[in-house]
């Protein structure tokens, strides 16, 4: 054991925790009694009926294998592969998120650079920011009249705030010295913004983008449960209505995995723009 590196030790420990957790889960689920073991009274009271219970991990694994081996099948509106459902969710998240970025980052620059703009816009931001994104849903459905676009709007409205606030904060906090370097080199406003302020504020901006994508992925599940039709959120709700808990647990895990992948993409981006003073 002494020869193992820290990472290997951690990996071994993780696998151990997973195995023990699954074992406890598997054992804590009471087995269904076989019909032959039932007393006459139990059979009369319906004891032979299969009970809806929490499935053991072995069943979830079986389900995962079945779903992941054919993730893109499409057998009608209520029966689509997990890949298709997740694809819809990612499409909505990215569309709403990119729209938010296109507005939040330039606006954040403006707020960060001009204290007048900051003071003028701050009250609106402070009031709009704490509104739960789902609270916008009825209004969005009424105005936009399209459930798909409403879901995208909800993603847009929830991911705009962290990006906006972090961009403004990062831009306002750029060191005076660096701005003076730009000034003594006679750089114009646009050139200063792109060659000095943007790289200086980039770590803060990307942190805001990372928070936003996390929130967007949280919100899409809830939004899709409401608007229905397609997407991983709808899938969870649909399987709950089918009382297929195996699929529910499997899709919960998939939500976690996709969220982790989205986050680690921004983690990579964060590393590329980071600098040490």
């Amino acid at each position, binding site marked *: 054991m002494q020869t193992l590196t820290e990472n290997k030790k951690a990996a071994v420990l993780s696998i151990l925790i997973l195995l023990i957790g699954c074992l406890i889960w598997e054992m804590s689920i009471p087995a269904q009694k076989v019909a032959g073991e039932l007393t006459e009274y139990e059979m009369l009271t319906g004891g032979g009926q299969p009970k809806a219970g929490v499935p053991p991990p072995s069943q979830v694994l079986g389900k995962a294998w079945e779903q992941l081996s054919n993730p893109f099948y499409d057998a009608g509106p209520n029966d689509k592969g997990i890949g298709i459902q997740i694809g819809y969710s990612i499409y909505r998240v990215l569309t709403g998120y990119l729209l938010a970025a296109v507005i939040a980052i330039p606006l954040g620059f403006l707020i960060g650079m001009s204290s007048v703009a900051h003071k003028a816009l701050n009250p609106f931001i402070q009031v709009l920011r704490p509104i739960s994104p789902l609270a916008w849903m009825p209004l969005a459905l009424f105005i936009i009249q399209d459930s798909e676009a409403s879901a995208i709007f909800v993603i847009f409205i929830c991911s705009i705030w962290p990006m906006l606030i972090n961009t403004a904060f990062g831009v306002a906090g750029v060191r005076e*010295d*660096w701005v*003076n*370097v730009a*000034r*003594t*080199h*006679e*750089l114009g406003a646009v050139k200063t913004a792109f*060659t*000095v302020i943007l*790289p*200086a504020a*980039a770590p803060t901006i990307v942190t805001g983008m990372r928070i936003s994508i996390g929130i967007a992925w949280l919100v899409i599940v809830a939004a899709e449960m409401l608007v229905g039709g397609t997407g991983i959120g709808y899938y969870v709700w649909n399987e709950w209505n089918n009382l297929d808990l195996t699929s529910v647990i499997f899709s919960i895990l998939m939500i976690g995995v996709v969220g982790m992948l989205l986050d680690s993409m921004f983690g990579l981006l964060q590393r590329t*723009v980071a*600098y*040490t*003073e």
Partner: protein
Amino acid sequence: MVKPFLSIEQLTQTYPDGLGGEFTVFENATFGIEKGEFVCILGHSGCGKSTIMNILAGLADPTSGVVKMDGAHVSGPSLDRGVVFQNYSLLPWLSALKNVTFGVAARFPQWSKDKVIEHSTAFLAKVGLTGDTIHRKPSQLSGGMRQRVSIARAFANEPKLLLLDEPFGALDALTRGTIQDELIKVWSDTDQTVFMITHDIDEAILLADRILLMTNGPMAQVAESVEITIPRPRNRTSIVEHPNYYAIRNHLVQFLGQRSAELAGQPGDAGPSSPETVRIDLIEDTDSEDPEPAAPILRAVEG
């Protein structure tokens, strides 16, 4: 009267003192700098040295008074006036080389990329940075190396006036000595006009043609302009053997230790207060008696 290359005329800076009144940092500062001259300014903290520097750089505006360079008014920052800041002010996300090319590309936009890199590399080499070092980020360089990059960036731009704001203030004594030597070397290659703030008397004597002395603030004034009558090239180890060295040094120490406080706070008259020129040259005095100029130095060494 012929105007000097850079002329600072009746510069006054006041700030609100927080009590509804005004606080005068310095008043009617008037002095000139000739082309190719290396001028140091010495004074205690709070006398407004850095403010004068920022005004010359165009980063701040004086309350009243004007700065003229080559006969034209100075307003706003310009590539004609390069600045080396005390805290280096390198852009931390760029490599040492890119920090220099950043400036060179801004100064000479018509140059090709290769020419910009070649020019920048040459100036980095002048301050002793070569090889892989120039591709490192500032965070991977020592304080001395960072200030070298900053000096290379300023000289590579070939500004008409170079402003150095306590460039060696944050460095240890050994590194400071090395970079002072490099600064002299680069400066003598380029004939740059330099205006430098420092706290270090020995550094000022080593580097400067002329030292401006400021009285203590508030209402500080540029009181004296001391000529450094020690011939170049100067060398840190041999300069102390020059007979003028201690005479000048004593004068400066005495000024900063005593007279800067005595002269402080005297409200100037309305007219411009030009610094009084002080020339201390022991060799010149002996020259009049002895026709051989080098002789006194030899005697001093033998003695």
